[in-house]
Structures are given as structure tokens and as C-alpha cells.
């Protein structure tokens, strides 16, 4: 069916395009993914189509192809070629070359394009000096060496604010942390070394000299042995020596020079660093502690000043300037924390502030703030100083959104009403007081509120459902006042007001979590869940709420089965035998998780209900191991059948094939590699294959029917059991005593190890009842196998834990530490870093297994640079984003379409550098995704023709969205080959290239933001770090990696299925190259992505010599 559709669509495309013979064929081939063949055809044409093909594919030969056309006699062709040459040159950072092409373009009669000749005045700044090389200072201050000089003080300020000071033990003051003390000590050493330098060089001509002695003394080292081959440098002053090593002084080179008698020379001069508004602006605020104090020392001595620096650097220059003029510096300093966290979306244009919901809401903002937004500086001054930052947080949250949600929330009456609810009576502590922004719930509510077509918010269930929750809450009141007011709720606004009110509280905001979870569940459903089901789910939230992400990802599941799942889970909780309960939970959750995987990858050939119902009904009904085995086996078999697997097929092979992501893969080679990789993990975990288990079961009845036991089969099971080493066989008594958890897990493993199935069968003889009983012994093995299959589907690249700890799957703790009731909660990593433990293990349900596995694996990634560390909360999500999506159903046209958007975005940015009409449209579109300061910085770069610098500030997702927005609004330049190709493709393949299809193909899972692991593109602004989530939501809002990698794959002419292997590998490489300075340093992530791209291009160039 799909193939027929494709053929029809291709035919439409071809007929729709007025193309010549070769080009027509080339297009057809390109669309079908035969890039090399298409290349041949385009090359044969050699005209504009060839040049545009090369440009669309980001091929370096595009410029040469356009150059040929620029010599054409046809004026139209000539001008178009020259235009593209201008864009291509700008993208390559060759402004002078672009100017040359522009001259020719004008000479050829081209109009409308020119470079801006009146550059805007630079931001006022001054220069300070930091002693010693910047590389050393950056090492000591934990700053990325990739930072531009202008970014350095801002990054340092961030580190000082977050890591520089700690509460003093006995008073209200702040003490320097060890980190900051070391930076100060380093500066002191650097000053000493600077004195030893002559003409900015530390030079040692002779080993045996006064200079050598002075240098070594400053470094904290001394010579052991006489000058010459036997000389060795050794520590004499540990604290100085520490600074020497930690700052990266080339001690080894010095030692070699002294040994060999060669001169030693090391460039050592102060580093000049730009200071926003110049050093005097900051030093005028307060007196220096000592007159000889350097500016950098003064700067680090005051965390509040550092925070103001941060806050002002987040504003666009003109807004900051206006604010500076309006507010005395001491007053600005007092609200530096608010500016830092919530100033990023503030902007004054022509003296006015554009408020969210403008112009309809302007009067309400005037009222709430106390100043009219038309008086920009005064408005901002009041905004940041009001209600300890709550009003600024509200403003910022609303500024980040657009569309119907913004329209709803900024309706004047609601705008005021919701703010009053949020603000409450006591505004302290403000949301900018803690280390992380305390406006998490507010941001989640405003950015994830779902609107109905009628402009009202979506309410899962009915208002009565929520009224009942607040009035008759089973676990105590959320808020006394809200409980009282809930009785009178009639409209959705009443509930939303309550959710705003709870967003201010520092405690767990359970109603908001329920609300967003159920809203997200309803998003994909044809019909939202009924009030009765919503009631039930709310009542069961405490026990089973974490499981609801599975329902959000399987929107086809009926309400009956949702209720059945919950009923089943409750029944399982009632099983008294702890070991049996763990096996039942494991089997139940694993089969559900496998169904979820099949559903996500659209592998089911029957309805979801038909696939999952037998699992949800049979397993909770079991009362012993034998029943469990029967139910789990039938469940697994049924699931395979539901995916179209033949009864006679090898169940293990079929299951692995499906878990690789495809039943009938288009790309056998890729599929085989994936299956082989999964098999390796399966073997490393010494799991028993489904086939062996099922065959043994099938064979059990043979003796009672006069047949013989299949000894070979039983031996295969036994050999797997023998293979299992006891997890802590060699622990001493003291080590065992140090263990504090895992009793039931150990018992589970121990029981399996003790199983001698052969002996059991021998004992049973031909007794049919006993033989039937023996099946119960297989139940725990089957549980492990099913759980293991879900593990291997999500195994992160490298999978060191799974390859090293053969008990990792078996030790999944479904029960958790006694009393913690983790059976149905999120998956967590537990027990790391205990020398006596059997290694970390996963605890809880399987619902967030992908994230937990990635979290367990992240510290095995090896940073490529000596100081870079793996970024705790961001990296697991990056791995999840690489590992969960599969690309079997992605078509070559979809891959190309996504890549085209990314490249069109960059190309339009480049074009905006010379097209004064296009530029404001581009910047306006960009501002929907990037904060004003960044959009303005991009604008400034474009005005100056610095296109690569502008693009460095735009993420691939933003470039993608920028193109989509402009094309949607018909504001993209149709003469651009990317834009025209996008339009052509969209017209030809409307369904295949719909926004939903592209979102599904190249999106990422967002378990926190969207309560689902279903990959999707939300096109939200990149989130900051938030209290309770650190960088996790930031990572979920980061949609650039897969888009960038899709473009890279398209550039190389890869088959979409190859992304199944490449994206996890490229992601691993990217993670290992991240050198971030702080937790919001996404530009570091962008740099690492681009480094991977460069490396891949380099190796592709070497292996393919420029061909696709």
C-alpha cells in the first residue's frame, strides 16, 4: 500500500516539475534514495540542476559548479549562479570573495542585494588583563578553552556564582570554596611567574643558573641529581607544585630541557580579556579590598557583582544600556539574581517593552507592574524588583510561548487572575533565590498546557474530577484555601488558577504532574479518557502514576485496558510470596514494555488492545510459578503472533529481529548488525533464549507420553545456569555485612543457580503431574529473558555494564529497598560506588528503563580532552534520544526533507546578510526560538557579513524551525535551491512530509516534558536548568542532535536505516567531545556536534574522494 502511494507520489512529483530528461530521472532517483545514481544523472546535465543538487547536498563542489554557470551568456542563469555564489561564499566565511561575486552580480544587472555599509556601534567594553596564559587560567577556573575571549568573564561569573562560595559555618557570611581558593592561589603564582618572564617569555638558557632556581622555586619543584641526563624534577612545595600541574605548566618540557642542556622557552604574558562596559563600571560599585588587587581578583571577590555581570550579559546590548541608565548600579545589583534567571526574555525596542499578549494585555501589565510598558526602562526596573522575582518569572514564562496558549493565558482577566494566584500572599522566597530557578512548575504549566480548538484549555476528565481531587484528597490537603475554593469550581479557568497557585510552592506539585500526565495521555488519543477513567487514574496516582507514560505512548490502548492494567497491578501487589511477586511484576512489566516497543515501532499487525489484553488479564491472575510460566509464555507467544510472527518461527530470533526495529527490514545489512549486537549483550548476560525455554516446556510432556526427555535441551539450560558465577562469591564477611540492600535479588539469582533441571526431570520420571510442576522452575528464567530483551533493546553504545556484569539484568530489583515501594515507580540506578557491592543495579519498574540504562552507562564514556567531564543530567537524555528512535520507516525523501530545512535555515541566514528586506523577517522568525539577546547578536553578525559567526549562535533545530516558519509564511526566498526543493517535495508528498511525520521521524523522546518516550519534535525554546530537574529538561528540549545527524547522513547519501547504527555512535562521539563550562552551556554541545560532523566529513572525504 505504502509502495503504491510512493509510486503515485513520485509520479506526481515528476509531472509537477518542469525538468529536462536527465534531471527528471535524477530527481526520481534522488527521491528514491539512490543518491549516487542521481549524482551521475545530474552531473551529466551539468547545468543549474547539477549545481543546485550539489548545494542541497552540502557538497564542496557546489561553488565550482556555480562558477561555471556564472560565465553563462543567459543573464538569468548568470545572476542566479552569482547569487548562489554569494551565499555559498558567505557560508564558508569568505566575505571578501562574496563581495567580489556581489560586484559581478550587480554588474550583471542584479538588484536588491548589498552589504550593510553602516555597521552598528560596538557594545561598550573595556579590557582587563589576567596574569599568565589564558589556557592555564581556564584550566584552573574550570572554563572551556573553546570560549571566545568575550565570553570568558561571563562564564567565570557563572562558576563563581555556582561554585565559588559556600555558607560559612558560624555566621551569615560566605566562605570561598576550595575551587575559588585555588584560582586565587594560581593568580598569585602567575604574577610571580610573570615577573620572571622577560619580553613575555620565560627563558632558561642554562640548567645551572639563578633563573632556574627562581623558576623552580615559584613552581614548587627542585632538581634531584645534577644537571644532565640524571636530573629529575621533584616536588618541594606541594601547594605550588599542585598549581603548576593543575594549570598545565609544561613541567615535562622544562625537565627535558634541563636534562639535555637545551634552552627552555615558554611564552608567558598576561591575557587581555574584554570586560562588559569596561572595568571601571564594575570597580566603581565598591572599593577594592586592596589597592594592588587586580580587576579579576576584585571581580571574583563579589558573587553578587558576578551575578549582575551574568544578568546584564544576557540582555541584548541596547536593552542593557537602557536599564543601566535607568537604574543606579547599586539597585541593579540588588536584583542581579532576578536578571540572571529571568532577564533573558526582556527587551526594550524604541523605548518600549513588548509584553506577552501585547497589545491586548498591555493595560494589565501596566497595572501589575505599576508602570506602562511604553516607558521601557522604568517598566523593566519595576518588573524585576516586584514580588521578589515572581512577576519577572511570570513575564519570562509567558514570553517563551506563542500561539493559542499565549492567547488564552494573556487574556486580560486571566492574566491578572493567574498571576495573583501564583503570587499568593507571601512572595518570599522568590524563584531566583535558590541555586536553580524555582519556577519549574510555572514553566511546565505554561509551555505544556494543551488548548482545545475552542480556545479553552484541555481538562482531562471533567472539572468535577479535579474538584473531587482537591476537596476529597485521599492523602491530605494540597492547600487549605484551594480545598475551600474548589467546591465552587465551574470552569477550566478555576482549575488552571489552582495549578498556577500550586506552582509557587516548593513542595511536590502532585496535581500539576497528574494534570500534565493525563493531558499528554490524551494528546494522541482519538477520544480523551472519560471522567470515570480519569478519576480512577487520579486515585491510583500515588501507586501507579509513573506507569502512565506507557499509556501516553500507546494512545490506541482502550480505557478498558488502562483500567485492566491498573487492576492487574493492584492484584499483583497483593501477592504475598515476595519471590513470586517479583517474578510476576517482572514478567508483567517486561511484556508490557515489549508491547510498548512494538507499538512505538509500529510492528503490531493487530490492534494494540488485541495484542496486550491477554497479557494484562492472564499474568495478574497467577497464583504460583507454574501459572506464571504458562501466562508469561503465552503472553510472549501471543505478542510475537501479534507482530505477524509465524507460529513455527524461532521465537528468540523473531523477537531479536523485531527488537532491532523491523519485521521485514529494508536494509538487511543494518538489521543483521543490530541483531548481532543485541545477541552479544544477551549472551553476556547469560540469559536463556526463548527458544530453549519454550522447547524445554514443549518437551516436558514427552516422558509421560512414552517419549524421552530431550537431554540436549536440558543441558543447554543447565550450561547457562552453570555459567552464572555467584555475584559476590569472593566477598569477605565484612564486605557482605557492608551490603545493605538486594536481599531478594540475591535470593533470586541464588535460586536460579541452584536449579538443576536435569535432576528435577529425572526425579519426576514419567509422572505427568510432576513434569507439569517442573515448568514452574522455568518461570524466573523466562522473567529474566523477557526483562533482558527490553534491556538489550535500549542498551547504550558501548554497554560496558551489560558486558561486564553478567547479573545486571537478573539483579533488576522490582521490589526495592524494604519499605520504599518502588515496584511501580520510575527506574533508578542504585548502589554505585560501593567497593563491596555487586555493582550498581536498576531498581523500580521498567517504565523509564532507557534513561536509567543511559545514566548507568554515562561514566564509561571517555572525554577526549583532559579536563572535560561527562555532563551528568544531559548526557543520559542524549543517549536516550539516540537510542530510542528507530529509522526503519524513515524514507529517503523524509531524510532529505529534514536536512533541507536545516540547510535552508543556514542558507537564509547567509542570504539575510546581503538582503536587507529578508533580514528582519529572518530575525523575527528566529526570535520565536531564540532569546532576544541572541537574536540581536545574530542580527549584528549578519549586518557585518559575519555569517559563520551568526550561524555559530543558531542551533540546528533553530535553523530547521526558522526555515519551516519562513516557508510556512511564504517568506523564504523561493529562488534558494533548498527552499524551492522543500516546496516541490511538500507538494508532491504531502502526507509523507507532513509536520507530524517529520516530527515522528527525527524527534526525540521527552519523558519529562511530554510524559512519553514517543519520539517527537516540540520546537520549544531551549529550556534553562530548573530546580528538581537540573539539565534534564534542557536536554529534552534539545532537538538539534538528531536533526544535525540527519543532515549529515543526507550529505553522505546514507540510507535512512543506517541511522539506526550511526546516530548512537555519532552521539557517543559528540558526548566525548563536549567541553562545557556550566550546566547551561549548550553552545559546547553544539561545538561538539560540529566537531563530529567535521571528523565524519574528513573520513568520508578520505574514503570516497568527494563522491556521495
Amino acid at each position, binding site marked *: 500500500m505504502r509502495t503504491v502511494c510512493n509510486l503515485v507520489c513520485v509520479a506526481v512529483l515528476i509531472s509537477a516539475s518542469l525538468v529536462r530528461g536527465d534531471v527528471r530521472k535524477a530527481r526520481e532517483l534522488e527521491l528514491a534514495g539512490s543518491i549516487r545514481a542521481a549524482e551521475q544523472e545530474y552531473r551529466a546535465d551539468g547545468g543549474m540542476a547539477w549545481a543546485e543538487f550539489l548545494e542541497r547536498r552540502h557538497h564542496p563542489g557546489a561553488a565550482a559548479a556555480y562558477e561555471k554557470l556564472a560565465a553563462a551568456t543567459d543573464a538569468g542563469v548568470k545572476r542566479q549562479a552569482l547569487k548562489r555564489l554569494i551565499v555559498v561564499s558567505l557560508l564558508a566565511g569568505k566575505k571578501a570573495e562574496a563581495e567580489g561575486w556581489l560586484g559581478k552580480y550587480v554588474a550583471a544587472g542584479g538588484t536588491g542585494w548589498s552589504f550593510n555599509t553602516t555597521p552598528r556601534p560596538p557594545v561598550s567594553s573595556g579590557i582587563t588583563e589576567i596574569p599568565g596564559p589564558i589556557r592555564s587560567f581556564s*584550566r584552573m577556573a574550570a572554563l572551556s578553552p573553546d570560549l571566545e575571549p568575550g565570553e570568558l568573564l561571563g562564564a567565570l561569573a557563572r562558576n563563581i556564582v555556582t561554585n565559588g562560595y559556600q555558607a560559612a559555618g558560624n555566621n551569615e557570611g560566605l566562605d570561598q570554596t576550595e575551587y575559588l581558593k585555588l584560582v586565587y592561589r594560581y593568580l598569585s603564582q602567575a604574577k610571580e611567574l610573570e615577573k620572571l618572564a622577560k619580553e613575555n617569555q620565560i627563558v632558561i638558557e642554562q640548567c645551572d643558573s639563578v633563573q632556574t632556581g627562581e623558576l623552580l622555586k615559584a613552581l*614548587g619543584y627542585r632538581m634531584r641529581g645534577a644537571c644532565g641526563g640524571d636530573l*629529575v624534577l*621533584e*616536588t618541594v612545595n*606541594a601547594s605550588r*607544585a*599542585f598549581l603548576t*600541574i*593543575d594549570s*598545565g605548566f*609544561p*613541567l*615535562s*618540557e622544562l*625537565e*627535558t630541557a634541563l636534562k639535555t642542556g637545551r634552552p627552555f622557552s615558554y611564552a608567558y604574558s598576561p591575557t587581555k580579556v574584554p570586560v562588559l562596559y569596561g572595568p571601571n563600571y564594575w570597580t566603581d560599585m565598591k572599593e577594592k579590598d586592596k589597592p594592588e588587587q587586580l580587576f579579576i581578583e576584585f571581580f571574583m571577590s563579589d558573587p553578587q557583582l558576578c551575578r549582575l555581570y551574568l544578568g546584564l550579559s544576557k540582555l541584548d546590548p541596547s536593552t542593557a544600556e537602557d536599564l543601566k541608565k535607568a537604574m543606579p548600579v547599586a539597585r541593579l545589583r540588588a536584583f542581579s539574581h532576578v536578571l540572571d534567571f529571568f532577564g533573558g526574555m526582556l527587551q526594550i525596542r524604541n523605548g518600549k517593552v513588548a509584553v506577552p499578549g501585547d497589545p491586548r494585555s498591555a493595560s494589565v501589565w501596566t497595572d501589575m507592574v505599576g508602570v506602562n510598558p511604553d516607558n521601557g526602562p522604568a517598566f523593566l526596573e519595576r518588573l524585576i524588583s516586584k514580588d521578589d522575582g515572581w512577576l519577572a518569572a511570570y513575564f519570562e514564562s509567558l514570553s517563551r510561548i506563542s500561539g493559542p496558549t499565549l492567547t488564552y493565558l494573556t487574556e486580560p482577566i486571566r492574566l491578572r487572575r493567574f498571576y495573583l494566584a501564583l503570587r499568593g500572599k507571601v512572595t518570599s522566597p522568590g524563584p531566583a533565590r535558590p541555586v536553580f530557578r524555582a519556577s519549574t512548575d510555572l514553566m511546565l504549566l505554561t509551555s505544556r498546557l494543551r488548548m482545545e480548538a475552542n480556545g479553552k484549555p484541555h481538562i482531562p476528565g471533567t472539572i468535577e474530577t479535579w474538584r473531587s481531587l482537591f476537596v476529597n484528597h485521599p492523602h491530605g490537603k494540597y492547600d487549605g484555601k484551594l480545598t475551600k475554593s474548589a467546591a465552587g469550581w465551574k470552569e477550566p479557568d478555576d482549575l488552571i488558577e489552582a495549578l498556577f497557585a500550586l506552582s509557587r510552592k516548593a513542595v511536590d506539585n502532585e496535581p500539576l504532574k497528574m494534570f500534565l500526565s493525563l493531558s499528554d495521555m490524551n494528546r494522541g488519543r482519538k477520544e480523551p479518557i472519560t471522567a470515570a477513567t480519569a478519576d480512577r487514574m487520579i486515585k491510583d496516582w500515588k501507586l501507579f502514576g509513573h506507569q502512565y507514560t506507557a499509556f501516553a505512548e500507546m494512545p490506541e490502548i482502550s480505557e478498558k485496558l488502562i483500567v485492566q492494567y491498573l487492576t492487574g497491578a493492584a492484584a499483583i501487589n497483593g501477592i504475598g510470596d515476595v519471590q513470586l511477586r517479583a517474578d510476576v511484576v517482572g514478567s508483567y512489566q517486561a511484556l508490557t514494555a515489549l508491547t510498548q516497543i512494538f507499538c512505538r515501532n509500529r510492528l503490531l499487525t493487530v490492534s494494540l488492545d488485541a495484542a496486550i489484553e491477554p497479557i494484562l488479564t492472564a499474568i495478574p491472575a497467577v497464583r504460583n510459578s507454574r501459572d506464571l510460566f504458562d501466562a508469561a509464555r503465552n503472553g510472549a507467544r501471543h505478542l510475537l503472533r501479534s507482530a505477524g510472527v509465524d507460529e513455527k518461527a524461532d521465537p528468540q530470533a523473531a523477537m531479536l529481529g523485531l527488537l532491532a526495529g523491523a519485521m521485514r527490514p529494508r536494509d538487511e545489512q543494518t538489521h543483521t548488525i543490530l541483531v548481532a549486537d543485541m545477541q*552479544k549483550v544477551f*549472551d553476556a548476560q547469560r540469559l536463556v533464549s526463548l527458544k530453549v525455554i519454550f522447547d524445554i516446556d514443549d518437551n516436558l510432556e514427552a516422558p509421560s507420553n512414552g517419549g524421552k526427555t530431550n537431554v540436549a535441551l536440558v543441558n543447554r539450560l543447565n*550450561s547457562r545456569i*552453570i*555459567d552464572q*558465577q555467584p*555475584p*559476590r*562469591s*569472593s*566477598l*569477605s564477611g*565484612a*564486605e557482605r555485612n*557492608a551490603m545493605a540492600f538486594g536481599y531478594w535479588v540475591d535470593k533470586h539469582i541464588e535460586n536460579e543457580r541452584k536449579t538443576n533441571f536435569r535432576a528435577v526431570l529425572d526425579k519426576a520420571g514419567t509422572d505427568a503431574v510432576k513434569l507439569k510442576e517442573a515448568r514452574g522452575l522455568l518461570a524466573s528464567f523466562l522473567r529474566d529473558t523477557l526483562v533482558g530483551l527490553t534491556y538489550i533493546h535500549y542498551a547504550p553504545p558501548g554497554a*560496558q*555494564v551489560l558486558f*561486564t*556484569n*553478567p547479573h545486571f539484568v537478573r539483579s533488576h530489583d522490582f521490589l526495592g529497598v524494604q519499605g520504599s515501594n518502588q515496584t511501580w515507580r520510575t527506574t533508578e*540506578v542504585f548502589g*554505585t*560506588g*560501593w*567497593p*563491596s*557491592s*555487586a*555493582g*550498581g543495579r536498576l531498581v523500580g519498574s521498567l517504565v523509564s528503563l532507557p534513561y536509567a540504562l543511559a545514566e*548507568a*552507562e554515562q*561514566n*564509561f*564514556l*571517555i*572525554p577526549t580532552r*583532559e*579536563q572535560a*567531564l*561527562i555532563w551528568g543530567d544531559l548526557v543520559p537524555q542524549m543517549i536516550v534520544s539516540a537510542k530510542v528512535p528507530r529509522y526503519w520507516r524513515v524514507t529517503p525523501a523524509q531524510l532529505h526533507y529534514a536536512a533541507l530545512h536545516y540547510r535552508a535555515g543556514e542558507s537564509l541566514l547567509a542570504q539575510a546578510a546581503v538582503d536587507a528586506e529578508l533580514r528582519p523577517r529572518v530575525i523575527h522568525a528566529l526570535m520565536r526560538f531564540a532569546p532576544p539577546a541572541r537574536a540581536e547578536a545574530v542580527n549584528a553578525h549578519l549586518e557585518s557579513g559575519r555569517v559563520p559567526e551568526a550561524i555559530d549562535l543558531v542551533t540546528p533545530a533553530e535553523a530547521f524551525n526558522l526555515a519551516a516558519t519562513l516557508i510556512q509564511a511564504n517568506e523564504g526566498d523561493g529562488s534558494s535551491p533548498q527552499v524551492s526543493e522543500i516546496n516541490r517535495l511538500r507538494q508532491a508528498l504531502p502526507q509523507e512530509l507532513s509536520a507530524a511525520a517529520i516530527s515522528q521521524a527525527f524527534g526525540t523522546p521527552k519523558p519529562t516534558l511530554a510524559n512519553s518516550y514517543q519520539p517527537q519534535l516540540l520546537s520549544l525554546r531551549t529550556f534553562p536548568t530548573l530546580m528538581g530537574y537540573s539539565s534534564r529538561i534542557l536536554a529534552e528540549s534539545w532537538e538539534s542532535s538528531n536533526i544535525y545527524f540527519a543532515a549529515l547522513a543526507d550529505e553522505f547519501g546514507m540510507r535512512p536505516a543506517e541511522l539506526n547504527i550511526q546516530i548512537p555512535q555519532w552521539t557517543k562521539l559528540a558526548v566525548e567531545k563536549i567541553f562545557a563550562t556550566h550546566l547551561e552551556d549548550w553552545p559546547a554541545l553544539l561545538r561538539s556536534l560540529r566537531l563530529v560532523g567535521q571528523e565524519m566529513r574528513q573520513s568520508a572525504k578520505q574514503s570516497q574522494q568527494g563522491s556521495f
Partner: protein
Amino acid sequence: MRKFFALTLVAAAVVGLTLYAQDAVFRVKVDMVVLSFTVTDSKGKYVNGLKHTDFRVLEDGIVQKLATFAEGNRPPIQILDDGSTKPLAIADNTAKENELKGPSDAFVGTNVFVLFDTSNYMYRSFVYASDAIADFVRGLDKADSVAVYTFSRNLTRAADLTRDRNFAIAGLRKAVAGDDSALYNGLLLTLRDAAKVPGRKVVIVFSNGPDNGSMVAPDDVRAVAEDEGIPIYVISTAEVNKDPISSGVFRRIAGRTGGKAYFAKTWQKQVEAFESIREDLGNSYTITYYPQTNPNEGFRKIAVEIKSDLAKKYRVRARPGYRPRTS
């Protein structure tokens, strides 16, 4: 067609190397076992000068036929079927395949992987430890290669495997101190790298013991070292009694892999520990063999026996066994 087989190896064998004995091709098969051990007398002194004929190697009680034999850092000899020996010429035909680019004469000398703990726990003794490691690197036999890795929460390859001592020391001197400690994660990754390198190799861990970040258990890491035939030496800068659990773990992973654990709080003791390791490396014997048919797919016990009457006086220290790989 490729002239030689470059095969994946099992049980600490050599990856993709083909050895020559004059014109005869010495093929390294997938199951070759490399076994290093030391022999000491009743006073603990190393016993040198023993020949291959002095030893008998048993695997699960099955006598094994030796393929090569080497003492200390001398070049290995090939043992032919008739018991005669020939010098072993070595050619590396898989340099491109070898990520770590081990030296072509990989069977000469030892590949030493130093794993330096740079976590917060080592903050106070960081520079002294760095000095002690630098001294150790300088004093290694010329034939040895050395790699310097550091770890805190993650592993860092400060200097890849090299015979250039200055390069290794320069890498060491670039180490940055700080962060959590994931010792066993770091050790595992080091073993994985070492396993890819042909020839004899050891891992030397320099740490004071605590681990607050590893996902893998010491005994799982020890099992990898055992299976790969890589002795682990541990120099702990903590006092043995201060953290008995870490000390016990150190002793076990060192002892079970054929290495040793040292508890050296002072710089002087650390230097002595390194000296002892150097001696161990210079005074060990290395044999290789292809296991005789053995149905045991689990842990296979290795015993090295000395044939002569001297056996009672001498003590052999070797890893106790290994698990053959399943694929």
C-alpha cells in the same frame, strides 16, 4: 587474499599478530592463552634462569603443550613439536586494525598501563603521586611500553601506549585533579584497552581506595582481568587498616590476577612499591599455549608446576585461571 589470519583472540591472547619462526608462519589462534608468572625461593627472592622444560602447565588438570616461552624482557622463543626451540621473529600486519597501535615488536617487553587516581580523594597527595609515577616511568626497562591513564568520575587517556618516556611523563603532568572517584569503571576501561594490545601487559593502579561512582563491581572487573590474562598491581596510598574493605578488595583483585597489592602511604614506600613492580616485570616468565580439548566452558583452573625437585623450595605466583570466551 590476505596472507595471514588476523583472528579475534580469546583469553588474553594476542590480537591479529602473526609471528614468524624463520620462514614458518606462527599463527595466533583465537584461543591462545598468555600466562605470566614469577618464581621465588623460600626467602622470596626471584628465581631466574629456568627453562621452558622446567615447567609443566595444567589447565583443569590437563597438561598443556607450550607454544612460546620468554623470561623477563628477553625476546620470546618458539617451542616446536619436538621440544626444540627457535627465536621468534614478529611481524605486525594489523597495525591499522589496532586502535592503540601497539609497537610492532609487541612480544618484547611489557605493556604497562598506569592508572592514576586524580579524584578528590587524592587531592592532598596528588603531586607526590605524580612524582612517584614519573620516577617509575623513567625506570622502566627500555623494551617496555607505557600508557598513562587517569580517572576520577571518568577515564582520561593522558598518554597512549608508547616507549617514549617523555611523552608518557608529559601526559602524566597534564593530569587535572578533582571530582568523584569511579575506580572500578576506570580500571575496567583500562583493561579493555590493554586487552586490545598484543603481548604481555599489566595494569598498575595508583589510588587510595575509595570509590563513590563505579557501576561495576570489583569482582566483575577482576574477572575481566583474569580472563584477559592481565595482572593488576595496586599501590594504595591509604593505610591498610583504615579501610579494610577497600584493602581486602585490592588484595583480592591483585592476587587473583597474578599481581600484587602494596599499601604505601609515604612517598618512599610508593617508590619502593614501584621498584618491586619493576622487579616483578623483569623477573617474570611468560608462556603461551593453546588449550587442549576441555569441555569446561566455565572457569578453567591453571596450575604452573616446576618439574624438578626444586619444586618444593620454589613458589610460583600466577593467575589461578580464566573463563574462555563464548564467541
